[in-house]
């Protein structure tokens, strides 16, 4: 065995390998999620500094490719990329050649031809980032939300926030994934149209938590076969037995409105009202991916209670996305660079990610 191949073998077992793309929580698995959370903790420290910026990804170019409205996710990714010193290009459909009839494939190939290292894609069609990843030859693709399918970085930052809150209460440093073992997670709201729910279910399940869903029948997915979840029949009992409540927005832009008789009835039966908050177990955590619609899935006064950690989720989103960008882009070299393997032999690096 040569020194080079020995090093390669050890590389694989030393740390969970992540990448080349992040399209689904399934790409990570339990060890991958744990690694993202571990590295995100290091970036959370960077964010607390007087100068919250590190030179780690200098010279890399990251493009956000958003075919759908977003403020927080795009800003969060762009802030994360800038704090890593990479250059950020912002592409939105409204002022691009897509308006002139350019296909997704041509758009991606054009952007790639400019030497982009990371593509952050949001698209209204499920699976679009997977398709982009198949076309991309050098760029790492990150799914920032595709249709009803997945939104992996949101689930990661939810897990990160939950672990942080639990560690704070226990008076320890957030570490490992033991705190998720047996944790009772209730996902409440428009699960049918929610990509956040799908990513959260995969992430919490991988970490050992028990996931329950609560929603009106019309807002549950058509089939739950094979999903590692149970469905709550009694919302009040489910709330009382939950350690974490993940509250989802009613997605009016995906036609959720047609699935409930009226918004008022939805709020009365499924909204997180003051009365329902009082049913929560001592120390329960309420997460919300945002944007919150006060008065629909959450009542205005509940949104500002300390049980709701939505603002903290937004803060943590930057650190978690820095970790994802760093783990995907920081581990291969600049194009044409030459490194030395353990035996001192020059090897080309960064030559694609095969």
């Amino acid at each position, binding site marked *: 065995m040569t*020194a080079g191949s020995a090093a390669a073998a050890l590389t694989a077992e030393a740390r969970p390998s992540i990448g080349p793309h992040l399209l689904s929580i399934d790409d990570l698995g339990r060890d991958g999620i744990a690694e993202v959370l571990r*590295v995100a903790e*290091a970036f959370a*420290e960077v964010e607390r500094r007087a100068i919250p910026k590190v030179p*780690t990804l200098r010279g890399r170019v990251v493009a956000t490719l958003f075919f759908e409205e977003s403020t927080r996710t795009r800003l969060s990714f762009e802030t994360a990329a800038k704090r890593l010193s990479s250059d950020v290009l912002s592409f939105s459909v409204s002022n691009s050649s897509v308006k002139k009839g350019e296909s997704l494939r041509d758009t991606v190939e054009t952007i790639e031809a400019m030497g982009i290292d990371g593509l952050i894609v949001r698209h209204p069609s499920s699976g679009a980032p997977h398709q982009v990843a198949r076309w991309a030859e050098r760029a790492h693709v990150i799914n920032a939300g595709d249709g009803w399918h997945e939104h992996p970085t949101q689930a990661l930052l939810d897990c990160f926030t939950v672990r942080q809150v639990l560690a704070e209460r226990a008076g320890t440093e957030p570490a490992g994934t033991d705190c998720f073992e047996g944790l009772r997670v209730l996902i409440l709201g428009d699960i049918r149209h929610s990509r956040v729910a799908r990513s959260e279910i995969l992430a919490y399940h991988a970490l050992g938590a028990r996931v329950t869903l609560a929603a009106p029948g019309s807002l549950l997915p058509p089939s739950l076969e094979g999903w590692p979840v149970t469905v709550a029949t009694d919302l009040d009992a489910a709330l009382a037995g939950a350690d974490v409540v993940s509250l989802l927005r009613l997605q009016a832009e995906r036609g959720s409105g047609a699935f409930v008789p009226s918004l008022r009835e939805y709020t009365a039966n499924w909204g997180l009202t003051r009365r329902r908050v009082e049913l929560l177990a001592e120390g329960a955590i309420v997460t919300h991916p945002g944007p919150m619609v006060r008065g629909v899935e959450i009542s205005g006064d509940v949104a500002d209670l300390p049980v709701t950690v939505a603002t903290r989720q937004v803060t943590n989103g930057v650190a978690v996305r820095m970790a994802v960008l760093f783990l995907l882009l920081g581990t*291969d070299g600049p194009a044409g660079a030459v490194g030395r393997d353990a035996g001192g032999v020059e090897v080309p690096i960064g030559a694609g990610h095969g």
Partner: protein
Amino acid sequence: MAERERSHSRPLGGVFVPHSQILSAADVQRALTRMAHEVAERNGGLDEVVLVGLQTGGVPLAQRMAAVLNEVEGESVPVGTLDVAFYRDDIGLRPVLPEATTDIPVDLTGRDVVLVDDVLFTGRTVRAALNALSDYGRARSVQLAVMVDRGHRELPIRPDYVGKNLPTRREEMVDVSDEGVSIGSLVDR
């Protein structure tokens, strides 16, 4: 970063096999005591002194040096820890991941910072540490204390306090641990 750590993490891999012991545990403690006295002498006391241990090998040494300073000067100095992974110049050349926490407990502006590490080799870790420190404020001075200076510098960096000057061959490994300092080599598993 401790060479032992690096040798056990990717991409080097392999097992450290010691050939000869250079310093015993008692020798390391004596060297630390001398270096602590030098730090106090050179800075005219400890008023503005902050010790910063480089993750991971420098951290226990910084803590031990602080304990000695506390004993001889009767004053406690702040001790921080620094992980330089995000500042390394070999990101992309080899996988670089943060290994441990960074914790700088005080604003470094106007302070005399003593960086503490176990082994000084190419100087690249120290270069990265200097960049990282500048993000925490403008220190009045930055000094470098190392238990072993093994030569082979690739950058214009020199230590201010040295436990032991140890000429080595490039491919040799130096290990600093609680049991002392030994020199050896890396063997494939």
